[in-house]
């Protein structure tokens, strides 16, 4: 494995890693507010569908079409996640069942709408998607330049900015403190005059926005159109990244990038001598196996928000 190959792998790994990080940050907001959200997968599907559709439609009109696609992904993700917020916060539904319903709904809904809009099982293919950019000046830095600033998808930088923003919002603002308190001990938070319902809505809807963006990012950088299998479990990998990253934005960044690299291996395995004899399918399965391993290794040690997944009962002490 030469240095050149590592440099080549980097941008691709970051392309795979960016949506994982975005969606995991979404999960962070939701779980920190006390609502577990395994609907990340479904929300990503809706965001991806919306992003791809808008890009296809606006493409002939404006070169900014993919950016409008990302924006639509965010909005549609927020709207879709409202269902989960309403059922699990107001109707005290079991959060796992409610989120699973959303995951099932996303599959039916997106393919149904594809048939209505494009009369086929998938969206029409867009011709470009997001375009890669090169940061002038910085790309000339040896080693780091070609790794991080040459021919990169701009969404990678968006993901980095979001990590910093999330860290700031969750750990440095009053809003973040309130959000976290609702995830740890909602009754205590309520006794201090915090509106637990409102904070949890904020958490879930923010997770919808981020997961929607992640879905749109994924389809616009890794695909040519939205299909039922465009997201293929990335939302669940994001869930694992959240556990792996100990519910912390920086940890999530590391975990997301780790999973990004594990996906790239399948492309490069054939060029790496000691890996080339292994079957291709093994590398396809690798990210999922690593997810399980990560969960086992970090299961006992990482402690999530205490009240995440619990139904908020005002009467409980």
């Amino acid at each position: 494995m030469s240095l050149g190959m590592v440099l080549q792998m980097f941008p691709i790994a970051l392309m795979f890693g960016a949506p994982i990080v975005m969606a995991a940050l979404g999960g962070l907001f939701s779980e920190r507010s006390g609502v577990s959200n395994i609907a990340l997968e479904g929300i990503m599907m809706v965001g991806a569908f919306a992003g791809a559709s808008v890009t296809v439609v606006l493409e002939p009109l404006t070169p900014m079409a993919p950016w409008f696609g990302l924006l639509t992904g965010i909005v549609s993700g927020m709207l879709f996640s409202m269902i989960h917020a309403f059922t699990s916060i107001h109707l005290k539904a079991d959060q796992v069942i409610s989120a699973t319903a959303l995951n099932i709904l996303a599959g039916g809904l997106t393919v149904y709408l594809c048939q209505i809009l494009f009369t086929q099982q998938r969206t029409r293919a867009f011709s470009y998607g997001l375009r890669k950019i090169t940061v002038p000046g910085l790309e000339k830095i040896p080693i780091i330049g070609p790794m991080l600033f040459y021919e990169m998808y701009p969404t990678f930088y968006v993901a980095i900015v979001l990590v910093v923003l999330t860290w700031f919002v969750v750990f440095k603002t009053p809003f973040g403190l309130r959000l976290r308190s609702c995830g740890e001990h909602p009754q205590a938070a309520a006794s201090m005059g915090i509106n637990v319902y409102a904070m949890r809505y904020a958490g879930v809807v923010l997770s919808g926005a981020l997961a929607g963006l992640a879905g749109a990012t994924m389809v616009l950088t890794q695909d040519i159109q939205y299909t039922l299998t465009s997201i293929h479990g990335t939302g669940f990998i994001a869930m694992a990244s959240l556990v792996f990253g100990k519910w912390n934005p920086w940890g999530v960044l590391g975990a997301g990038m780790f999973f990004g690299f594990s996906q790239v291996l399948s492309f490069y395995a054939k060029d790496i001598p000691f890996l080339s004899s292994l079957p291709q399918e093994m590398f396809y399965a690798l990210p999922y196996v690593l997810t399980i391993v990560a969960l086992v290794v970090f299961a006992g040690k990482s402690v999530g928000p205490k009240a995440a997944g619990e139904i908020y009962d005002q009467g409980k002490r």
Partner: protein
Amino acid sequence: MTMGKKKKNGSGRLDAVLVPLIAVLLGFLVGSIFLLFTGKSPLLMFNAMLQGVTGINIAMRSFNPRYIGELVIQAMPIILTGLCFGFAARTGIFNIGAEGQMMVGSLAATAVALTVKAPAFIHVPMILAAGMMAGALWGAVPGFLKARFNVHEVVVTIMLNYVALHFNNWTILNVFGSVDRVKTAQFPQSALLKSPWLESLTNGSRLNWGFVPVLIAIVAYWFILEKTTFGFGLRAVGYNKDGAKYAGMKVNRNIVVSMMIAGAFAGLAGAIITTGTFSFGRALSAAEGYGFDGLAVALVGACQASGILLAGLLFGMLKAAGPLMQSNGIPKEIGGIIMASIVLFVAMKYGIERIVTIVKLRRTKGLALPTETEEAGV
């Protein structure tokens, strides 16, 4: 997790039927509204469903028993994956891994079908047993990880679904060999559940003997959970893990065993699909959704054997009506939308139960609405 619990009071049994029923009706309502919004006629959908259930086409005034056969074919695997989800749920485990457990089941069935030579009365039971064992082993993994390391089973089972998919594809394509990169060679006749008699009875549907093991599985599910001490132990873990432990039950062992039995149901589904509906092992491009269908079936059926049977037939109808809808210009995915809405409404049990209670109160005592209802947003 509070699924499958029966309440002690008299109205509990009625509610256990009423809530899923209301959820189903609301689900169809949402589906109909959705169709109207996108400019399609719900009547066409209901007509397709009626035809799917009874074989009667109102518009053409014709009867075709093939549709009934196809309905059973569609219901068989999702009843089994429903039993799979339901069994684990009764022990307090949220097993979304039926899909993967089913894939390894069909893979094991393929292996036995292609490599063993035996007369049908030995070959078929061997295939079914192999499928169940493979499913049980695949199910044991998340069970063990939960019991030993306290890893949440939801993410693990979903990850294992993807691992099963790629493992299945590699084995089918490289071990058993495939001419067209999609399927293996045809199974020998002795391996198949197919029946020309059942096929001719239903005008050329794919109906086969697979329904016999399905019925046995339903009875076994009921018997193990409701009639044995062992099943009581499993349910006790589902009700209250700490309580069961305090009472001296082996909680961790029960979790693993429950997942193995659940996996066996899904593995059986895989074996039946492979040797009944199809007659060759298949490489798959993606999951086929049987796992999530089973989850919906079990939730609507309140994780009770009889409920799972009925819900399985209901969702089997939705699936069987798919091609009919598609030919009427209605995207068959409306079935998935309805199914997801029903699950969502089942999850809103609390809200529905409140409405039911309020309606009852009003009727019997003429009481005004409790103020909490506005707050609950129902």
